[in-house]
């Protein structure tokens, strides 16, 4: 934690992002009902500064994959490393290299929004004045500077989710992990969020791993779309999204429709149709 936090607290980071590599990853959960193989034979390489969307139905191991990369889980077999070449090392939760935003905002109800966003800095022992200044900057970046003094219960769902995103970004980690962060929001708010996330990513090219259920969201945001197989999860295919940025909410290019078709075809191939929620989703 010490080395990572020292780097994070300096506030000056010149690297553009962090590469991620998963090799022959297998992850087994052992519970009272026996064993559950969540991931098996998963290989994935993500280059520094890229935006990758991971798509697949519930229970295919997307969130497990993200928790392995965040260092919250240790793979049963195989390896997960962050960084390139000699710098490559397994992730450790709280080492300052990753920021994780969840499906729910997960704010501490007794802290103000500002203190919630400053929490990663407080845990690292950053002095109060410095962490307040940095938390304010993070709130400004996600567009809710005015909510600094409010408690989580006073925030709307969208504002709370922005606060969760600000907390993940406050240490300016080179790797941002987003676990369906917009799935609880209504469609319009979500589209606005996607546009902002694209803007934030274009401002600072950190590596982003976004877990999503939405094909259209994946196409709006990602350089590459990783389609996962059904459980036990592995990579079914990786599709390149070569569309110009900034991409509009409504993608009208024929190339976008082409990618949409390809993603859905892969999904239909690897998942039984009754488990395929995207078959009903309108292509955008």
């Amino acid at each position: 934690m010490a080395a990572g936090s020292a780097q994070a607290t300096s506030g000056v980071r010149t690297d553009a992002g962090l590469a991620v590599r998963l090799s022959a990853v297998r992850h087994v959960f052992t519970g009272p009902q026996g064993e559950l193989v969540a991931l098996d034979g998963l290989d994935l390489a993500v280059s520094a500064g890229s935006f990758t969307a991971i798509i697949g139905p519930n229970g295919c191991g997307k969130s497990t994959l993200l928790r392995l990369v965040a260092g919250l889980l240790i793979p049963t077999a195989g390896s997960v490393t962050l960084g390139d070449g000699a710098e490559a090392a397994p992730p450790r939760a709280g080492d300052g290299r990753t920021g994780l935003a969840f499906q729910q905002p997960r704010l501490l109800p007794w802290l103000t929004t500002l203190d919630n966003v400053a929490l990663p800095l407080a845990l690292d022992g950053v002095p109060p004045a410095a962490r307040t200044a940095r938390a304010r900057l993070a709130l400004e970046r996600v567009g809710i500077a005015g909510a600094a003094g409010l408690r989580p219960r006073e925030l709307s769902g969208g504002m709370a989710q922005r606060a969760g995103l600000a907390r993940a970004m406050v240490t300016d980690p080179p790797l941002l992990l987003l676990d369906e962060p917009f799935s609880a929001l209504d469609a319009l708010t979500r589209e606005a969020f996607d546009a902002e996330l694209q803007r934030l990513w274009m401002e600072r090219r950190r590596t982003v791993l976004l877990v999503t259920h939405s094909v259209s969201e994946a196409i709006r945001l990602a350089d590459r779309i990783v389609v996962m197989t059904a459980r036990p999860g592995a990579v079914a295919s990786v599709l390149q999204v070569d569309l110009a940025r900034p991409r509009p909410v409504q993608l009208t290019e024929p190339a976008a429709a082409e990618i949409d078709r390809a993603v859905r075809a892969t999904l239909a191939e690897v998942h039984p149709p009754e488990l395929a929620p995207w078959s009903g989703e309108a292509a955008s």
Partner: protein
Amino acid sequence: MSRRPLRRLAEALLSLAAFLVAWKILTVATGTPPYILPPPEAVGASALESIGSGVLWDHAAATLLTIVLGFGLGAATAIGVGIGLGKSLVIERVLSPYIVAAQAVPVLALAPLLDIWFGGGLFSRILVCALIVFFPIAIATMVGIRSADALLREMLRSLGATPGQVTRRLEIPSALPVIFGGLRVGVTLSVIGAVVAEWVSAGTGLGVLINIADQGLFDTPLMFVALAALAIIGLAFYGLVAFVERRLVQPA
């Protein structure tokens, strides 16, 4: 003072007046002799007398000291132990049989033993008081610590929080409402603990005053005065805990 506190005060006074009137009617209507149920004015006179002579205050002060120190010691250890119990199943498995057994034995039965071990001084009275306060607060703390949201736990873990940081930042704040529930129960029990301890060994205290009034003087009005003083002390400490709770615990 705004209108609302005034109104609440008026309600309280009205309820007290109704209680005294009903009491008076009961004594007159049933013709109960004063050594069994003294009328309110006899208790009032006894109260004024014992306040004037300083007797009531001397005994009350001794009881208050036992309660404050006993509750303080009991609550502090209970919260500490409760955090340990809540965080570690091993600690719970090892300690809980002893804690439950100690709670199952009546404090009245334990007090003479503590008296032998530690002598009949203030310390053994504090221990009796602390012992009776300990259980509800320790159990409330344990339950509260475990009630912390699993999603928030994972969030803190993803930020590399140490177990100590998780306790301070998440577990204690989420346990506070439950801990205060235990403190409310504990603070009323601390009055019982102090009186029990005084019955076993003490020269002063409201428990002693009740004994004196009962066996020595057959002074039922004085006994009522001592009981009323205990009730007021209990109410005051309960109110104090509730006040601190309102200051510390955020509405959810």
